[in-house]
């Protein structure tokens, strides 16, 4: 190819006029599919599976990807909560009740000595009976990393005492302050994540199964099954959610162990949540069962369960997963609200709602505002799930 320009390559040089024009025959082998052939890039796109297309489309939604990462990190912390938290869930520091958050410093009297905290000095205001904590700038306590602190049983399997960060020996490290029993708020938030985050997942698993089953039956069989399911959904939907949750969780027997209560609350949250999914499944099935491929499957003798499971469900599974993701935050908020009101989870099981239960009156807001901090992870999780679910929903239909 010459460097003179593209023109020279593509133009065919004509013989001067008057000369005999030779019969031109290309010797290259003829490929009838040449016009329809795809570039490798197009091929990659057209042959990609549905899930791969969804992933490509999802990646374009930056906020959703970031939210997904945030969620991944938050769920990741629940695996190693004990190591991340400086203290154990129930460690009480009776000398430091309602201690205010300690700040991490790097420079002591102008010289760098690494991250450290100053010792807190407590004074009691005799008029208001309020404890005031001030930093004592004479006593820096460097933090220790990967150190041995409160002993715990990791996952209930092995004894350990490794913590990511601990206070110096004899010092304290309350990055987010302490509560009325002198328990470290940061550690309790980290431990609370386990309960608050899993309750949404377990709840959605139950409600997903219920929604698929009931919506599937209604959509596939139609007729009176459909009628009944529709009426039931309508009735459940005409209850205000929270009061009904309140009523049901108030009914859970007082004698139940906290872990049973945990599953009871999860069940209650799921029991009222499946209606939306069931409706979606039903309307999709009603539309899809009229498709030709469904008729073909039926004529070939496939059983209803196979038709639903193999031919119909995969067609809108992605939509279902997206809308399920969007209903997780509702459950997390529901649990938080119930526990805040004192009729949800009970100590010693600790969720963010249980922690917020301590911040129930206006005095706390005024005197010990750090007790409201457990609401921060709640907000972050709800936002992240909403953005993540939005991204999933947009990606759920990659062919559009």
């Amino acid at each position, binding site marked *: 190819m010459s460097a003179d320009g593209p023109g020279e390559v593509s133009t065919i040089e004509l013989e001067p006029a008057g000369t005999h024009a030779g019969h031109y025959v290309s010797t290259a082998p003829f490929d009838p599919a040449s016009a329809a052939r795809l570039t490798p890039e197009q091929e990659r796109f057209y042959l990609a599976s549905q899930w791969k297309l969804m992933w490509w489309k999802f990646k374009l939604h930056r906020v959703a990807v970031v939210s997904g990462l945030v969620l991944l990190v938050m769920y990741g912390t629940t695996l190693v909560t004990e190591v991340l938290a400086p203290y154990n869930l129930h460690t009480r520091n009776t000398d430091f009740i309602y201690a205010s958050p300690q700040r991490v410093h790097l420079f002591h009297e102008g010289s760098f000595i690494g991250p450290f905290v100053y010792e807190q000095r407590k004074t009691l205001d005799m008029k208001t009976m309020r404890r005031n904590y001030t930093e004592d700038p004479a006593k820096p306590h460097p933090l220790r990393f990967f150190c041995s602190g409160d002993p715990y049983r990791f996952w209930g399997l092995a004894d350990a005492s490794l913590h990511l960060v601990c206070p110096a020996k004899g010092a304290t490290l309350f990055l987010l302050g302490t509560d009325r029993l002198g328990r470290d708020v940061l550690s309790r938030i980290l431990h609370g994540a386990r309960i608050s985050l899993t309750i949404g997942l377990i709840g959605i698993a139950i409600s997903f199964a219920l929604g698929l089953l009931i919506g599937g039956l209604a959509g596939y069989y139609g007729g009176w099954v459909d009628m009944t399911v529709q009426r039931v959904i309508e009735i459940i939907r005409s209850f205000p*959610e929270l*009061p009904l949750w309140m009523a049901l969780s108030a009914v859970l027997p007082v004698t139940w162990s906290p872990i049973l209560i945990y599953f009871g609350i999860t069940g209650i949250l799921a029991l009222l949540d499946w209606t939306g999914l069931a409706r979606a499944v039903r309307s999709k099935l009603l539309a899809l069962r009229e498709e030709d491929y469904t008729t073909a499957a039926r004529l070939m003798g496939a059983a209803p369960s196979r038709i639903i499971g193999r031919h119909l469900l995969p067609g809108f599974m992605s939509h279902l997963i997206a809308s399920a993701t969007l209903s997780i935050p509702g459950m997390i908020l529901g649990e938080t609200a119930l526990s805040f*009101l004192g009729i949800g989870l009970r100590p010693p099981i600790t969720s963010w709602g249980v922690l917020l239960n301590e911040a129930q009156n206006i005095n706390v807001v005024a005197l010990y505002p750090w007790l409201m901090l457990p609401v921060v992870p709640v907000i972050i999780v709800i936002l992240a799930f909403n953005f993540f679910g939005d991204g999933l929903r947009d990606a759920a239909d990659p062919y559009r």
Partner: protein
Amino acid sequence: MVRYVVKRILMMIPTLIAISIIVFTIIQLPPGNYLESYIAELQAQGESVDQQKIAFLREYYGLDKPLVEQYLRWAGGMLTGDFGYSFEFNMPVTRVIGDRMLLTVIVSFVTILFTWTVAFPIGIYSATHQYSWGDYGLSFLGFLGIAIPNFMLALVMMYVANVVFGTTIGGLMAPEFIGKAWTWDKVKSVLEHSWIPVIVIGTSGTAGMIRRLRANLLDELQKQYVVTARAKGLPPGKTLRKYPLRMALNFFISDIGSLLPHIISGAEITAVVLSLPTTGPMLLSALKSQDMYLAGTFLMFLALLIVVGVLISDLALVALDPRIRLAGGVTR
């Protein structure tokens, strides 16, 4: 039209019956009944039990009869305005409730108005300026409204109002009106005091409504008639006002069905935090102490509020939308 209205009202009856059965089942679920634990408590405190009164109550509400009969008595009583007996307050439920229900209705109604007035302009702006910075900012605010739990917002607002405005806001009216008959001044006082609960309750509902309105309007804006209108040279404002906005108005009314349960849920928990004289705090305490008739009445009332709200929105939709009126169909 009349046929549709009658049919729609008749359809409410089985729903209400089913709801009352569910409510009755829930309040019956705890083992034993309140009367027995009440007697036990009185005896434990060494107080004398008015046997005659207990016997009368047991007889009157059929507490030793089979469940079906108890239910029939309870449901039948409600139809005649007898909502049962509150064992905790030791008086009939109707007297315990007072004007709490009316106040709940007022708060919910004002909140809906608030939601509409806020969501309408913002939703339209977001839809017409899709993917602009304004849209992103407002959407983020909306998400934040969904994500912040009502009760926390209530606490913070209460604190802020206390510090900034110097008002104590545990209540829904000036103290001198509590327990008084309804006058214009009292109504005014209630309206003056209701802005904090209304904002707190309204935030999450508003946020959801903005998102739904935006999605709806966006769908509408992509339709061919909008393209046609623009191709004919209609100015953007007129294009919007003339067609898509009218569709959106319909949606405003039909959306009550999903807005109302939300508002009522939010109102309950906010009322607990702000200790409003509405149904919330009393429902919570009734549930905690298993004061079954009181709790049942509240649950029934809240469900009724939603059913009636949806009914009104359906009827309004029929009156407004000729397509539904002429087809005579059901809206949802």
